[in-house]
């Protein structure tokens, strides 16, 4: 049986909780962008653009943090059709 992942909206999450979530998978934030361990902006793997903390998604699969835009979502679904 396929494991179902519930999608949880980050709208309404306090920024501290978002930062804690990011921290748990090795990322951080300057409260605008998602940052890596070295404090550099993390780029969305599909669009190559910096990921804003107020528009991010954290998806299954090697702690994938992406920008929540149609291009990244379509690309993720093409790569991992059944994960979300």
């Amino acid at each position, binding site marked *: 049986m396929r494991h179902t992942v519930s999608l949880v909206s980050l709208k309404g999450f306090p920024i501290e909780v978002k930062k804690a979530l990011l921290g748990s998978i090795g990322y951080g934030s300057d409260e605008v962008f998602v940052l890596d361990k070295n404090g550099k902006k993390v780029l969305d793997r599909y669009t190559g653009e910096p990921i804003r903390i107020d528009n991010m998604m954290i998806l299954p699969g090697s702690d994938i943090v992406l920008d929540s835009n149609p291009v990244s979502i379509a*690309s993720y679904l093409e790569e991992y059709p059944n994960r979300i």
Partner: protein
Amino acid sequence: MVDGPPSNIDWIAGLTRGTLDWTEDKVKQIIAAYKNRDIAFIEDAETVKVIKDQRESEEWTIIQTYVKNKSLRIICNLGLALRAYETQQEKAQVLRDTICRVFGNDGLHIAEAIQNGILTDFIMTRIGDVQSGDLSKQIENALKEAHKYIVFVKDIDKAEERIFEIKTRIYAEMPDTLIIYGCRGAIMKVRKIAIGLNKTLPVSYKFKSNQTPIKIIVVIFRDH
């Protein structure tokens, strides 16, 4: 009944309703649930729904059958999303801009061709005439060079000028396929252009068309 901590289902439901208290324990529970792949997080769940809905459409089934290239499939998915956003101009424009930034103008042309249903019309026009594998190749070639092989006609276009332009393009490139598309006020213009081209192109080029009250697609293809 035994009292105990609330089940995962209870607090995930609380999360999705936004009624959860943000205690340290709850945050730890959320992180554990993510690590266990029970939940994922998204700022805008509606966007995921729009993209996923397109992938469950009949049109997507057709696209999946014939379009094998991953990048093209992503653009096709986005083209269908553009159609879903037709009544939300701001979202449509943001999506067009993003497609253009990531996939260039060519990507945007492809997405707009999908948005207008050109690909499925093309498949319906050619299905039965060619082998499935050959049709896949024709489709992918036409999409990859949509700017060359898909001609959008507007009602204000001058038919003679478009005939000259398309004829020049065909003689220069000798493409296997060329698609002419027009909607509403441009339908009669497309018909006029097709008639004009039919008189002047080599006989090896055949014409097939599919017209509805709101759009027309004319496929010109080389019969080897």
